[in-house]
């Protein structure tokens, strides 16, 4: 038999369209994502040019936001964004991990499915509905119960002083926490579920209790992923506009008290863009958007760096090998 004929292409060219097509489609999709990001960034920079010319980088460090006197600055909004999202993620993370642990390790099987579905559903609630609930239910609770309680127990701290109010930083933090918990919890739950059962058994077989197994084996194995989940939730909190706008009180100013009214970058943009009276104000709002985008991207990149810590092992091993060779009077190469 002729050897060559066996290896020759037998199918028509059209049969092979799949590979190049797949390549082209995936490339186009990747290129599209980059292009969209580029276009958005370009548009933001263009839109904020006016404000940038007027205020320069000082915009970032100025507290004022005064439409009547045409003075705009982002500092108090950056502060509001940072305080609400950092505190929200700080409260949400342990809660979310606890929920994920309960769902994967402790709850009986039927409860797992039901509760898991409920948590996912919480993530599906539109933020405007959460905001509405914040106004109708959470706000009054914060004003009449939570703030008086915090004031009477922790009132020696400046964070828990001042007039009680249903709208303000505290309510915004709680609303953001409710939004972020299901996101972090569901991602973390997936992470725990992918930790191989042999690892758990390995720990338990050493005489570890369940909690020791969780702390010593499960959490470390899932740690990089948990960072990613937290970053995801944090990004969500930083960017949330509608629910925050509805409960935060929309006021400029930097206050230590969590009971105070405040505002965030995203909420300010959403709240003022349509009612903006001058070109400079509109441009300042776009400037805010640019800052918001930079913060979001920085969080994202930071998270990716945390997840993939630079692996130094190969280098160290190389050095060890070199040393071993040297010891035997050999050269490594």
């Amino acid at each position, binding site marked *: 038999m002729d050897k060559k004929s066996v290896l020759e292409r037998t199918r028509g060219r059209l049969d092979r369209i799949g590979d190049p097509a797949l390549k082209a489609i995936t490339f186009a999709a990747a290129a599209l994502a980059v292009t969209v990001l580029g276009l958005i960034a370009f548009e933001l920079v263009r839109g904020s040019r006016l404000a940038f010319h007027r205020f320069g980088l000082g915009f970032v460090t100025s507290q004022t936001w005064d439409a009547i006197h045409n003075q705009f600055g982002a500092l108090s909004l950056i502060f509001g964004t940072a305080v609400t999202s950092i505190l929200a993620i700080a409260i949400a993370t342990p809660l979310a991990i606890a929920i994920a642990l309960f769902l994967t390790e402790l709850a009986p099987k039927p409860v797992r499915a039901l509760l898991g579905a409920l948590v996912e559903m919480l993530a599906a609630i539109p933020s405007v509905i959460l905001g509405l609930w914040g106004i109708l239910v959470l706000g009054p609770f914060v004003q009449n119960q939570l703030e008086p309680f915090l004031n009477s127990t922790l009132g020696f701290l400046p964070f828990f002083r001042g007039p009680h109010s249903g709208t303000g930083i505290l309510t915004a933090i709680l609303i953001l926490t409710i939004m972020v918990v299901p996101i972090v919890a569901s991602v973390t739950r997936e992470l725990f579920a992918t930790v*191989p059962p*042999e*690892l758990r*058994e*390995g*720990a*338990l*077989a*050493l*005489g*570890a*209790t369940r909690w*020791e197994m969780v702390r*010593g*084996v499960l959490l*470390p*194995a899932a740690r990089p992923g948990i960072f990613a989940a937290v970053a995801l939730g944090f990004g969500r909190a930083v960017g949330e506009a509608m629910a925050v706008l509805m409960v935060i009180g929309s006021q400029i100013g930097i206050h230590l008290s969590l009971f105070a009214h405040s505002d965030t970058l995203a909420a300010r943009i959403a709240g003022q863009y349509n009612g903006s009276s001058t070109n400079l104000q509109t441009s300042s709002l776009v400037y805010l958007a640019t800052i918001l985008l930079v913060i979001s991207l920085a969080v994202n990149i930071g998270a990716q760096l945390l997840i993939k810590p630079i692996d130094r*092992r190969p280098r*160290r*091993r190389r050095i*060890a090998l070199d040393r071993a060779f040297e010891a035997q009077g050999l050269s490594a190469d």
Partner: protein
Amino acid sequence: MEAIKTKIEVTEKERLPVVSEREAVFEARDLAVYYGDQRAIDGVNLDIYQRLITAIIGPSGCGKSTFLRTLNRMNDLVPAARLTGQLRYRGIDLYGPGVDAVEVRRRVGMVFQKPNPFHSSIYDNVAYGLRILGMKKDLDERVEKALRAAALWDEVKDRLKDSALGLSGGQQQRLCIARAIAVEPEVVLFDEPASALDPISTSAIEDLMHELKRDYTLVIVTHNMQQAARVADMTAFFGLDVSPDGNRQGVLVEYDETEKIFTNPSDKRTEGYVTGRFG
């Protein structure tokens, strides 16, 4: 019988203590384990002796792992698992009231089929058990001792802080053995510890078991007949039995000195299995 003898080589071992001098660590009496309604093993009567290596062999699904996991109460983790009969550990009813499974596992360590190092450094893998059990004094010495006992020290002493996941499969398995013996258990159970390893790592593990025998009581489940013949002093052969109600369960067919099991078994089923003629 001559044919069997040549087929499986039984290595020379030190003389076994005579029956009357052996001390039983585990005594199983009419032991049965159920998963839900299904009986996995039934009517097992078996003594496991101190400082000997006991091998458990038998066809797949005959309940070898099930039996092994009752010895350190790992089967407690399977919600549907249930046990009847009696299992005594040094005279104490292992499943009696007031016996804490966590305490049992501390004394009866286990090495699994697939190497399962934790996602941490080599050092921390070995130190993990010591830390949770509060054996924090002389931690470094204890870690070194365990790694030496597992014949791994020379290979890892310069990279104790490196991730355990960077070790080869055979090294990982020896690390798991080091981890198990670091907490100074009395018994170590092995469930097919070498089935995922190459022949050289396998032989390293087997040599290691011979070493460990001086201080520990070892029980090994294996599919590898040569391995059982090489390492074990005593061998238990489990077979599959179909009861009148249609349940397929594992039963202990024969239990004796390894040499006897492989050269002169008293049960036809054992003979068929060890010579490769199943059934």
